[in-house]
């Protein structure tokens, strides 16, 4: 290997400006990124509630009633309200990624982003309606 192409162990001192820990708070688009990432905390939070529900369900009607009363705790209702907004944000940002991840072409022309994301919303609506139907059906 010629000396000029060999890897040099010597580096002049790197110059890097220090990035503040709060770098994401300065600009709306960065803040949006952090909020989107934080939505995952509420995704996990919901799974914990679901696990508690399954646990109560397995222990019998009284334990399940207790679980339902526990969900009425005002603090938990507020937390669930915030969590709902975060998971909505997760869903919308996730669905809108589809046109960014793939460019759909029809007769040589690129389909508008709105049309590529639209099927996600249609499926979302159908799945949500099915769950409401299954849970609310009488008898």
């Amino acid at each position: 290997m010629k000396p000029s192409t060999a890897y040099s162990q010597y580096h002049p001192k790197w110059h890097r400006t220090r990035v503040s820990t709060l770098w994401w708070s300065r600009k709306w688009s960065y803040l949006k990124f952090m909020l989107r990432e934080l939505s995952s905390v509420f995704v996990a939070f919901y799974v914990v509630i679901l696990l508690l529900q399954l646990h109560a369900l397995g222990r019998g009607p009284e334990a399940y009633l207790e679980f339902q009363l526990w969900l009425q705790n005002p603090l938990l209702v507020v937390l669930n309200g915030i969590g709902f907004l975060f998971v909505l944000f997760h869903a919308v940002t996730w669905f809108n990624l589809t046109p960014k991840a793939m460019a759909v072409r029809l007769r040589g022309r690129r389909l508008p982003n709105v049309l590529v994301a639209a099927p996600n919303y249609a499926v979302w609506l159908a799945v949500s309606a099915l769950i409401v139907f299954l849970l609310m059906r009488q008898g």
Partner: protein
Amino acid sequence: MANRSNEPFLWALFSGGGVAAAFLIPVLLFLYGLAFPLGWLQPPDYERTLGLVQHPLTRLVLFLLCFLSLFHWAHRFRFTLYDGLQIKHLNPAINLFCYGGAVTGTLAAAYLLWTLP
């Protein structure tokens, strides 16, 4: 093959969890977190809920929802700490907390769904 990494596998779980969480969690959290506790809608009773969850298909969907969503959280939260707060020196502890938590939750979901009466 010297640099084989399990990052693509973890990313696939993250992505699958993103899809599962986006389709299922908003409506479930709205119903069980807001609409039922606040009395906007009448929740299904114990027998009906148990009947619904006992169905093999429901068990499978709920298991996948727990499993994938937890790995979605683990992956995203790990990088939130890494990029956002720039905590790099705690990487092994953070990985253990995130993926360890996801594995624990997944096992709990499997156990609870399996032992349901």
